[in-house]
């Protein structure tokens, strides 16, 4: 195998002493420190202040309910299947109504999550979204497995923009048509 030998440049005396560089750094810091005026502030008062995140930011995956406060998730488990690090675990349960199924347990292990957003992409019910939540901390591993309640709680941070609250139209259509055709539609719609 051929290779090229690159010889390192000799350091000058100033560089060898380090002091000039350190002083240059201190000068830079001081110049920011002594700057005045609101527009000139270079530090941010985190956590009171936070970054404005871009719309495409992918934080903690969260669950949402529709405008009637019905769980959108039907526990189809596609997110569990597609999740590359297997962070999601779902146990389905049977419920009354047009939609027969909902999650009994929906856990996301935030120590495993890699924020790839596949779960959001694969969801046929638009029930899971990537939020802008990025403060994930806890003192035990168990704490960092986010249960369903917490995911719905975090889901509220998404607000109502971007179709988050829209119910998948198929269930609405189903309930309406069933009613028109004289079939049981007394359940939730």
């Amino acid at each position: 195998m051929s290779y090229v030998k690159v010889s390192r440049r000799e350091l000058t005396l100033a560089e060898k002493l380090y002091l000039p560089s350190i002083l240059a750094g201190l000068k830079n810091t001081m110049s920011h420190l002594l700057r005045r005026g609101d527009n000139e502030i270079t530090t941010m008062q985190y956590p009171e202040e936070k970054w404005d995140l871009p719309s495409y930011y992918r934080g903690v995956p969260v669950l949402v309910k529709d405008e009637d406060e019905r769980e959108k998730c039907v526990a189809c488990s596609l997110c569990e299947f597609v999740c590359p690090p297997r962070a999601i675990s779902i146990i389905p349960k049977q419920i009354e109504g047009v939609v027969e199924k909902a999650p009994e347990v929906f856990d996301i292990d935030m120590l495993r999550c890699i924020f790839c957003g596949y779960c959001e992409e694969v969801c046929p019910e638009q029930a899971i979204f990537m939020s802008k939540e990025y403060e994930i901390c806890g003192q035990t591993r168990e704490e960092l497995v986010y249960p369903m309640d917490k995911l719905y709680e975090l889901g509220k941070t998404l607000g109502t923009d971007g179709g988050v609250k829209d119910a998948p139209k198929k269930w609405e259509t189903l309930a309406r048509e069933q009613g028109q055709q004289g079939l049981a539609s007394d359940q939730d719609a």
Partner: protein
Amino acid sequence: MADELVKLTIDGREVEVPRGTKVIEAVRDMGSDVPHYCWHPGLTVAGNCRICMVEVDMGRGRQTVISCNLDCSPGMQVFTQSDPAKQARQDVMELLLINHPLDCPICDQAGECKLQEYSFEFGADGSRFEFPKVHKPKHVDFSEHVKFDAERCILCTRCVRFCDEIAGEDELSIVNRGDRNEIAVARGGEMTNAYQLNTVDICPVGALTSTDFRFKSRVWFLKQTRSVCGSCSRGCNTTVGTRWNKVLRMVPAENDDVNQWWMCDAGRLAFKHTAADERLGAPMVRKDGKLVEASWDEALSAAVEGLEAAGDGLFALVSARLTNEELFLARGILDKVGTQHVDFKPRTWPKDDLLRTGDGNPNAAGARFFGIAPGDGAHGLEALAESGLKAAFLCGEDLDERPDDLAALEAMDFVLCTGFHETETMRRCASVVLPGVTEFEKDGSFTNIDGRMQRIQPSLSAPGSARPDWKLLGQLLARLGGGEAPRSADQVLKSMGATHPELEGLSLGRLGPLGKSLPQGESPVTEGENTVTAGENTVTEGENTVTEGASA
């Protein structure tokens, strides 16, 4: 007559099939497949789903026809992949999907649904139908085991034909007309036949689903293990679906010589004992009148000591639910101890003309083969209470439902119990308890009522430090001076040839997926008969190489 062969051409390949073979079967035997919903190898031809269209030329030009109801005839040319054939199937798919609810996210069939598969393979992108879908009743209980969704149903009538032709109770039928057609239980009652869950297996879509498995898990997460049902001596082949180290469902696996594609409901639901609360996870030894947990070493030593002290005064009840390998080892232990008082407990199970045999012991034939029966003048189970024996070995068995025998055991000096869950017998009588496992947690083989040796395979891991029965029996035998303890059930089976020439050369692997016939009973079988059986076997396996998934 039956042997008369017909020569025809399928997709340019010349094949010869017996007269009377349907085109769809001929294609299947070639190793290829024509899409089908209503056709099932175990049922009569209905020809109503129309998806199995192929193009056929019988000398009068090409026509598209359904292949499931077309007899092969000489000189016929079949084109399964021609454009008109494909177009016909695509059109049928479009029609079938007009009123389909597309609720795959909440449908248990998703993942093994033929509608999904064919839709993916050659379905259209969307529907051209502009009107509201016709809606029908959803999640209707056909019985406590079967749920029906009329919207998903494509009216293939597999379930109707199954109940009529196989289960022998004509209890399902199609009611209403036109697009209001739906399946209903006759006279508005409930399904009652003992094989109704097979309709769930053969339903090509999600119209019939199992109440027991309902929403437990998506099927693609299940670990599928081939095994054998342990509920009766028929030995129906099964595919066990497990997840989270729990059995979630059990469905029949095809075996033409045992259960074809079917299995009884009670058998397939008999896996709840694996998750029982009272499973044993550690050996126990009785100290000061109480059973306390002990180490394996301590428990095995206590067991061996008790067995050796008992000698020919030991009463042994060996379960016929154990595998052949375990029965062989148990037999070895009893020979070493030197007792003749050996028996197994009979177990009843419903009996019918289809599959259920009436014998609830899955390996009664194996127990007889390995001589698990009282010797001359010795006490069997019926004579236990009056025998006056002072020690007992309950190998994978209990006497919970027999108070007289339980009282007799209680009066004994030493009782060794093995089993997978804590029984009344153990609590009251056992001196030493060794935790074994269920048939879902071990390797081995069962011999069914027809003398067919079939392999069971582990699909779960055992709780705690419980050991497969072959392992603990092997260790007991080794400590009694029977050589080295076996390292696998397979090793036990391979070693049987030395004492049982009929089993020479067998291994769990060689039993194959469909099992091998074993000469039955105590009577030695002549070489000649043996050879014939083996011969038949080879032919059977050949026929079975192309299989229709029973759970499709």
